[in-house]
């Protein structure tokens, strides 16, 4: 176990290094930030000072080494636009995004899992066919358009929930959260549904195929022959077996949801890190873009590790050491 975690940690460092190289060089191909930062009437001398201060006069590989050196000390650079450390800027926005992602996963699983199991228990029925076709429709909806339609129906037309922003927040252990206020909930619900729909479809399909497969296994037939009640078979024998793929997906999707939240946050003007990324891309705020990708990668890598550890808990047949080799 310890060996497994250690090996994965070392692998993760290499992944992070590779990402830093790719992103650093890709992002530094984006236009000249100096043009945006200095006003047109600055003298050439002042410009020089500015360029030197930002370290932009060095060749790119030297800039990368400086970046790596700072990274080792936990410094991912300072935002060109905001003038504060990029890490600070992103971590400030992180709770808003996490709140959205967690709620959307809860929605996806609590609706997708039961619907999928219903479809999987009787795959050839009309209900099952309707659910499965509906799930294809669910992931065929472009997230940005689907969010705009949610806004149109529930915010503009019915006026049930606000169209944008985060609403009232309360400080919980020093972090601003909105799920503790009624106003916060009303702002949270539409973006969370927006983000949840594609994953709901995904969880549903996984649960359906897992259930359809497990239903025909010997242990289920045996339990049925033994006279175990149907509800108990579904809960104890089927549900437990389909949880492994579902947990994998939740884990992997947790990372992508952070990335996909850029769309939701753009549509709903949600002040999370995805909105920050889009704004930074527009403003050519390189350090923030690089820092975002590094932090996002760190989150993906950690979540993947947690998912693999969760297997061992859910499925005693899984051997971690073998999986790592």
């Amino acid at each position, binding site marked *: 176990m310890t060996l497994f975690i250690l090996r*994965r940690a070392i*692998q*993760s460092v290499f*992944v992070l290094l*590779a990402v830093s190289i790719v*992103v650093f060089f*890709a*992002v530094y*191909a*984006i236009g000249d930030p100096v043009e945006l930062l200095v006003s047109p009437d600055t003298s050439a001398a002042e410009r020089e000072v500015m360029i030197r201060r930002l370290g932009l006069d060095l060749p790119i590989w030297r800039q990368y080494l400086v970046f790596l050196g700072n990274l080792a000390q936990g410094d991912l650079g300072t935002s060109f636009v905001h003038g504060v450390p990029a890490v600070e800027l992103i971590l400030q926005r992180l709770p808003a995004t996490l709140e959205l992602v967690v709620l959307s996963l809860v929605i996806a699983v609590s609706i997708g899992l039961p619907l999928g199991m219903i479809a999987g228990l009787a795959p050839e029925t009309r209900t099952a066919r309707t659910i499965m*076709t509906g799930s*294809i*429709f669910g*992931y*065929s*909806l*472009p*997230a*940005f*358009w689907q969010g*705009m*339609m949610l*806004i*149109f129906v529930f*915010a*503009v*037309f019915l006026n049930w929930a606000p*169209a944008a922003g985060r609403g009232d927040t309360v400080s919980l252990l020093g972090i601003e959260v909105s799920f503790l206020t009624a106003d916060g909930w009303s702002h949270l619900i539409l973006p969370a549904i927006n983000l949840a729909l594609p994953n709901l479809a995904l969880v549903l399909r996984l649960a359906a*195929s897992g259930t359809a497969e497990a239903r025909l296994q010997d242990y289920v037939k045996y339990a049925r022959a033994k006279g175990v009640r149907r509800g108990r078979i579904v809960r104890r024998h089927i549900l437990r077996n389909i949880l*492994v*793929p579902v947990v*994998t997906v939740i884990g992997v999707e947790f*990372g*992508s949801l952070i*990335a*996909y939240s*850029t*769309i939701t946050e*753009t*549509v709903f003007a949600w002040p999370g890190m995805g909105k920050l*990324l*889009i704004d930074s*891309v*527009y403003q050519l705020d390189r350090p923030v*873009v690089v820092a975002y*990708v590094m932090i*996002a*990668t760190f989150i*993906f*890598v950690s979540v*993947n590790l947690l*998912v*693999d550890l969760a*297997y*061992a808990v859910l499925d005693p047949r*899984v051997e*971690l050491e*073998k*999986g*790592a080799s």
Partner: protein
Amino acid sequence: MSERVDTSSREPVALAPAIGQTPNRARILARLRSRPTARGAAIMLAILVAAALFAPFLAPQDPYDLAALSIFDNRLAPGAQSMDGAVYWLGTDSQGRDMLSAILYGLRISLVVGLSATAAAATIGTLMGLLAAYVGGLVETAIMRVVDFILGFPTILVALILLSAIGRGVDKVILAIVIVQWAQYARIMRGSVLVETRKEYVEAARNFAIPGWRIMLVHLLPNALAPILVVATVQVASAIMLESTLSFLGVGVPITEPSLGLLIASGFEYLLSGEYWISFFPGLALVVLVFSINLVGDRLRESIDPRRR
């Protein structure tokens, strides 16, 4: 990002072609035709493709010819009449552009991007996967590491960062989609070639001293291609969706080109004041297109899946 604990045995079962019993093409098509939803989706898809193909003849207006637009006709509701008496069935946008025409032209871009990106990504990915599985060793490790690396990240993030670096343009969007999508084909192809190489006909071909490239392209490729085709169908839909999303975010197709994503974005501000049609209809066209491709892809997968025969 690296190897998952072995639950992968689930997936290849669904994707691998029937081992030892190559699916019969006639039977697959017959099964496909017997499904009413699949037939409906295929017909819908054919209509949309035809509409896109013949857009210049069908569209009442050339939506990107600025001289043809009349600013006095801006933001008219669906069914309204223009200054010169024509009817705007789906309304107009803020520049007086006929939405129906704009959507027809937008579908063209969607299909061009979706089909060409998928074709390029599938070709590159298939060849890479074939090479990795057949040659093995260092080549395999190198290719599969890159594949793992790319697949470890959400496509939208990679495409977004990439496009912000190389700039906007239809060709660049296609390039970005190819970069994020080829890896998927490579992984699937490698899996299905690994199964094929163990079969006797490959052994026989080797004993006849047939050159490696010939075994790969003539013997292995056709036999390992079925799962690639199924995935490619669905990938066309996801490429179309990705293009519209990137354009919506402002890093995709430039505003001088018709794109459904851009049209939807341009209607966003008017949506809040109840003028829904600028965003609604292009989005509807996009959904119907993507949904019908996905439905056809799903039924195709079901028809090929040996467990459901």
